């Protein structure tokens, strides 16, 4: 039984009990309580009859730098942000004058990349009222929000992608080069060999740690891996071990760079697949 069905059953029961009390009980106070219960039950049933939409927090869109091969890819990501996280389409239209704010059709051709960037990040810096160049200057009551600040808060990469989309849909050459997209701090290319890493783990770490197995006296690393990003894990192993722990000291000298990369590859694979050894 779904939550809605359960609530509907409760609502119907309340209405039914209320109706029975009204039919068979003579005491006025109880009759009034029954009447109120029936009204409230009926209200709930009506509310359960309309489309049930919950408002969930927006999914965090991944800006996968590795997937951007050319300018088209960048524009495609920009399009997703335009209609998604950026919420631009709530007010702006593309090719229709019905919107509350300026129509953005051809805006990529009319405005330079620098102007677009400024319009998104400092919208009040230059208010271009007469953007249509016809008729009297038009006033738009909706103030453009600072798109790089909360609640929308697009980062630089995302704003570049949106500009690429605006230029692309205007038939203009995209002036944002994928090389300008900065790799986020978290993005790390796994370059080690996980089979080699497993050997390193057994030799160095297995004395005190397991991965996904509960063993007395040993710490299961799987929950730790789940909480850590790759750079965080590197720091944890190499330079910032647990406070007071001497086990990790000198790892940066003991481990060859290749062994360390292999170990990372092995641990990151364990994290991704979350399977025990």
């Amino acid at each position, binding site marked *: 039984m779904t939550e809605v069905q359960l609530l509907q059953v*409760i609502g119907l029961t309340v209405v039914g009990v209320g109706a029975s009390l009204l039919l068979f009980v*003579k*005491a*006025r106070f109880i*009759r009034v309580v029954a009447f109120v219960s029936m009204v409230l039950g009926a209200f709930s049933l009506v509310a359960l009859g*309309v489309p049930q939409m919950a408002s969930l927090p927006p999914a965090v869109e991944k800006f996968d730098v590795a997937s951007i091969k050319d300018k088209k890819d960048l524009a495609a990501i920009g399009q997703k942000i335009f209609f998604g996280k950026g919420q631009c389409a*709530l007010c702006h239209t593309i090719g229709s004058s019905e919107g509350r704010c300026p129509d953005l059709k051809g805006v990529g051709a009319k405005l330079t990349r620098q102007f677009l960037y400024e319009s998104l990040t400092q919208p009040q810096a230059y208010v271009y009222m007469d953007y249509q160049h016809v008729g009297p200057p038009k006033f738009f009551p909706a103030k453009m929000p600072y798109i790089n600040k909360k609640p929308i808060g697009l980062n630089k990469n995302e704003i570049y992608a949106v500009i690429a989309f605006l230029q692309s849909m205007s038939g203009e050459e995209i002036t944002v080069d994928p090389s300008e997209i900065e790799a986020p701090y978290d993005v790390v290319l796994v370059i080690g060999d996980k089979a080699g890493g497993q050997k390193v783990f057994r030799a160095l770490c297995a004395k005190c740690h397991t991965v996904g197995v509960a063993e007395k006296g040993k710490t299961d690393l799987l929950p730790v891996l789940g909480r850590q990003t790759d750079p965080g894990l590197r720091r944890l192993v190499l330079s910032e071990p647990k406070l007071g722990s001497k086990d990790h000291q000198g790892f940066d000298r003991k481990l060859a760079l290749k062994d360390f990369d292999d170990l990372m590859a092995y641990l990151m694979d364990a994290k991704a697949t979350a399977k025990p050894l």
Partner: protein
Amino acid sequence: MEHRNSHPREMRRSERVWAYAALLVMLVLVLAAPLGLAMAQEAPAGAAVEYRDVPGIGSRNLIWIVAQQHLLLAGFVLGVPIFAWVCEIVGVRTKDPRYDKLAKEFTKLLTSAYATTALFGGILLFLLIGLYPKLMNYLTDVFFPSFLVYSALFLLETATLYLYWYGWDAMQGRKKGMHLFLGFLLHVFALFIMIVPNSWATFQTSPVVITESSMWAKAWAATWNPTWWPLNVHRLIANVVLGGFLCGAYAGLKYLMTTSQEERVHYDWMGYVGNFIGVFGMLPLPFAGYWLMREVYQYNQQMGITLMGGFLSWLFILQAMLIGILFLGANYYFWLGIMYRIPGSEPKYRRPILIMLVILLVCLGIWMTPHSLVASLEEARKMGGTHHPLLGVFGVMSAKMTVANLMILVTFMSFIMYWRAGKQETAAWAKAAKAVMGVILGLAAIVIVVLGVWGYFVPAITRIDKFSTTQVLIVLFVLLTVTPLTGLLMKSAKTTTEMVWGVMPARAGYALVLNAVMVILLMTLMGYARSSSRVHWHIYGVMQDTSPYAYSPALGYAAAFMSLNTFLFCLMVAFIFWVASLGGEKKPQQKETRLPVVGAGPVPVVRQ
């Protein structure tokens, strides 16, 4: 046929059972919180805790119930005294002692109601500090000076309330002016007690940039946020409406239960006054709501769209339904009053009442028409989308604004009709005045409809800025011209048929109870809307909700909570009324004729 239950003592007993039940529910709520918290998982000592949860019910749901009860009780303790004070003034002006008695009867409720409101306020504060420490830290940092102001206001309010209530009998006659002034002071403090916490709530919805400055400057900057005053005005009017309709519900209940003709007359009249003040407040309320929504849109379009066009859009269909039922209930009570209290009036008023009923139902139907329909794929294909080719026309704001204004006009006409019923104007200019009023009403209705239709063919901004505002101004113009004109006419009018009190049918009492339930439900519904408009933010755009409850539940689930909250509040109000009645219950010694309860038909008289 009702036989035994007509005895007053037995009815009081049943009343007590329910009052005890309400007390028990409150105790369970109060006890459940600490028990739940004790079970909640705690962070290590010293670590910064952002959220705590309550197993089972969940922290958000618990806060929802307690905050809603506190808010409704606060509306009650702010609205009812305004209602009582207005009655006291009317009593002084008309020299009718019934109004003073009524005012005193309702002021008596305040002592117990205040304590209950403060109790829930305290529980809410402790729960917020315990369950949402991160948010409360931030709000305290911004608003601490206003916490101090709030405490000081409570002291002043309490002292004034004591003087006002305990000095009632001592300050009669020549000192009545002093007593009225105390009542005025009480409302000034009460107004500030309302608007100070409003600033905290509205800051969460429409925060402003807080720069580093003195704590007073910070608090003031945050207080003066864009939705603060619209909400203040909206809540003030809504509290008056709540006070009026709650008074009406109390009178309706008492009217249904009493067996004494004297009490029946009294409670019938009380129900009339309550309904009158409720309707009087209800007429400008949509305008205050419109202003609030305008400010929300101007502050952040995205938030406005979430409310009116996003996942909350269906909520406004439910709101239309509740307001529509409230309008119908209030009008129905007026119409029953004309039919029953003014003997021989039925033939004269049957036709206009029928016309008004049809207009109200048509308007309600249009108001409730959704913009897009819930349709199967096949149905959608046939319609060419989710917009019905005919009904879709009524689902837009232009139509809804038009019918809302028309419903206000019709309700106003009902009120004027009731006012004039059973009276004959004697002024020489009466005919001309009536013609002018008719023209004003007719023209207003035509212009409102014309603007409504025209609204389909102009850009949205023109409709919002010009047409809707004009419609609102037209209705206000009608209210402000026809009311004083009718008042002048009635001043010299002679009564042709005396009003007979205490003869209303049982359904009039139920209509009064229904109106109060609708108002409470509306308050819970719009509280959910206001809170959900922030979506996954504690403070919109400033502090994100990162708890597991960072979502707004669907309408069905929310409506179940609204119904629960309304029911709990009704029980609590019954408890407060009962507690207040303990001190001054009449014990009639002399034998009096006992009647059957209203609507029960002739029954044998039960004597003590």
